[in-house]
């Protein structure tokens, strides 16, 4: 399911990678924004507390050095500020004390901070650290000097470092979770799509409209699957109707409604194929041309229903006389043609014709006419003896049939025999 469902162009992406990308962008946004906001808030809080701290440290230092400043006891001043500086006041980078005239009396600084601060200042990062703080040294309500305190900002730097580190850790963790869930989620979405695609393919190839997509746990997808299955059901019933209708149309086009025999076109087509095959294999074929004798009179005397019954009866007899591979057709009002596919000796057709005449010895049932005795005239043509084309064969058989009819009319018996209606 990881592979794209559709053979993709270069710019297509799988659903999973799309989801992963979207999620990653989202967590970048969420984690980034919240971390950065938290870091900024924390830095602001720290910075303001650092500023307050510096105020307290400055005031307390200034209080501690007051007497020393009054007596201009510079070593004592240094001792006082160094004592506070060393006492773990890591937020103080530099302390400078000057008297009221601005003469610097003593300075103190964290060794090792200078270069770092220089670097920070050079890199433009000194915005982080609160600006230097100057407080007056008061004695008896008079300002006898001032103290200048420069912040170190070490805790701010550490906080910033930690903030960035946690941002990275949080992002990594979230990214891992996101990839896991995106994979899972994509699986949930892709598997039904995959099923649907597979079934669609199967239907395309096999036209197996009865296939159905299995149900899905996700509601929307399940709805989609249901709709798809519904569509398949509809298609299935359409397909079925189409097949029935198609079969009906085929039958209508090729079969004669009344007798159930094939029509002229189909017979011609079949005959052409058989002639081609026989030409290659050196086989013989036989074509019979059959006409119902006195059919017009039957129609006139007993009505069309009787005529139709006669045609149906004759067709039934013809079909009954056929062998495997033979084909009978109704090619005109009372004319039938038969293709004999297996001719071993030249008088095989004559035997078929004989059986046909024999089978018609029994009268045929007809409505409003009781039973009618019906006779037929049959013309025979052989391939390749009489003709070697479809039309030639039909024409030869037709001519033979007319010769039979004519000789019957003059009282001569032909080799095909003849029967007149018994009750005419």
């Amino acid at each position, binding site marked *: 399911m990881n592979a794209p469902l559709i053979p993709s162009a270069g710019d297509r992406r799988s659903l999973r990678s799309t989801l992963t990308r979207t999620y990653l962008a989202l967590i970048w946004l969420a984690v980034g924004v919240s971390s950065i906001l938290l870091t900024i808030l924390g830095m602001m809080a720290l910075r303001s507390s650092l500023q307050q701290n510096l105020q307290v440290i400055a005031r307390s230092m200034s209080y*501690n050095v*007051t*007497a*020393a400043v*009054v*007596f*201009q*006891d*510079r*070593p*004592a*001043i*240094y*001792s*006082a*500020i*160094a004592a506070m*500086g*060393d006492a773990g006041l890591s937020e103080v980078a530099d*302390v400078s004390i000057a008297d009221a005239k601005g*003469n*610097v*009396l*003593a*300075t*103190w*600084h*964290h*060794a*090792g*901070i200078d*270069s*770092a601060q*220089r*670097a*920070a200042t*050079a*890199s*433009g*990062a000194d915005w982080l650290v609160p600006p230097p703080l100057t407080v007056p040294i008061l*004695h*008896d*309500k*008079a300002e006898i000097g001032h103290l200048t305190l420069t912040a170190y900002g*070490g805790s701010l*730097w*550490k906080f910033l*470092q930690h903030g960035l580190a946690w941002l990275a850790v949080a992002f990594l963790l979230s990214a891992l979770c996101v990839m896991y869930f995106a994979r899972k989620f994509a699986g949930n979405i892709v598997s039904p799509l995959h099923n649907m695609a597979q079934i669609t393919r199967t239907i395309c190839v096999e036209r197996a409209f009865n296939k159905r997509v299995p149900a899905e746990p996700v509601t929307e997808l399940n709805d989609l699957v249901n709709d798809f299955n519904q569509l398949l059901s509809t298609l299935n019933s359409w397909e079925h109707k189409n097949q029935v209708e198609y079969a009906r149309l085929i039958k209508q086009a090729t079969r004669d409604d009344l007798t159930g025999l094939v029509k002229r076109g189909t017979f011609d087509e079949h005959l052409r194929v058989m002639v081609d095959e026989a030409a290659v294999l050196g086989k013989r074929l036989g074509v019979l041309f059959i006409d119902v004798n006195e059919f017009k009179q039957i129609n006139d005397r007993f009505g069309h229903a009787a005529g139709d019954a006669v045609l149906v009866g004759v067709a039934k007899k013809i079909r009954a006389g056929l062998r495997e591979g033979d084909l009978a057709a109704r090619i005109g009002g009372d004319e039938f043609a038969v293709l004999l596919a297996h001719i071993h000796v030249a008088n095989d057709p004559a035997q078929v014709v004989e059986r046909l005449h024999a089978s018609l010895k029994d009268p045929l049932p007809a409505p409003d006419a009781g039973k009618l005795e019906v006779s037929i005239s049959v013309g025979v043509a052989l391939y390749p003896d009489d003709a070697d084309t479809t039309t030639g064969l039909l024409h030869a058989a037709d001519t033979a049939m007319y010769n039979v009819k004519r000789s019957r009319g003059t009282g001569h018996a032909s080799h095909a025999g003849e029967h007149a209606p018994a009750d005419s």
Partner: protein
Amino acid sequence: MSSKPQQFQRNGSSPHAVRLLLALLAFEASLAAGQVVPAHPLETAAQRNAAIASTVTGIISYARWPADPQPIRICVVANPLYAQGLLTGQLDAGRKIVTQEMEIDDPTMPSSCNVLYLGALDEKQRLALIASLAGHPILTISETGPACSAGSMFCLRFERNRVGLQMNLDSIARSGVHVDPHVLLLSASKSRVPD
């Protein structure tokens, strides 16, 4: 100190991020440093007069008398060498100060002086003087004097470029003048100076 920041200083084209990283890395354990800015040496008499005056007013500013005298009267006794600043200068300790010279045997001394600035006295004289002041809240400052052991509360001493201050805590405790402990601390913090 690591050499990385130095490298960074030389290499001005380092990317911004690298600079920031180096700046972050540079926070290491540190040693305290700094300096006592040396003052001008006290060479002339005028400088010494001024220094004495400033020190005495400084002491006064940290002292509180039970009756809160207005003004505070300084009596200069026994011809100290550098009292000129006290006698003529503009004194300012937040309160008004007046200065007068006084004989050592002046009987009004206990009642008319709040501060005695003493010149050179021998042991006997000083003890007699201190005894006569017993029960009066008077701040005594000796311009000279060995080790501040003979009854004076504060003893001044010229060092190379400043006026040193010594205190006799017993005398201060007995005197009835309240001296701010900040001043008292000054005599105890002379050991850890880098120069």
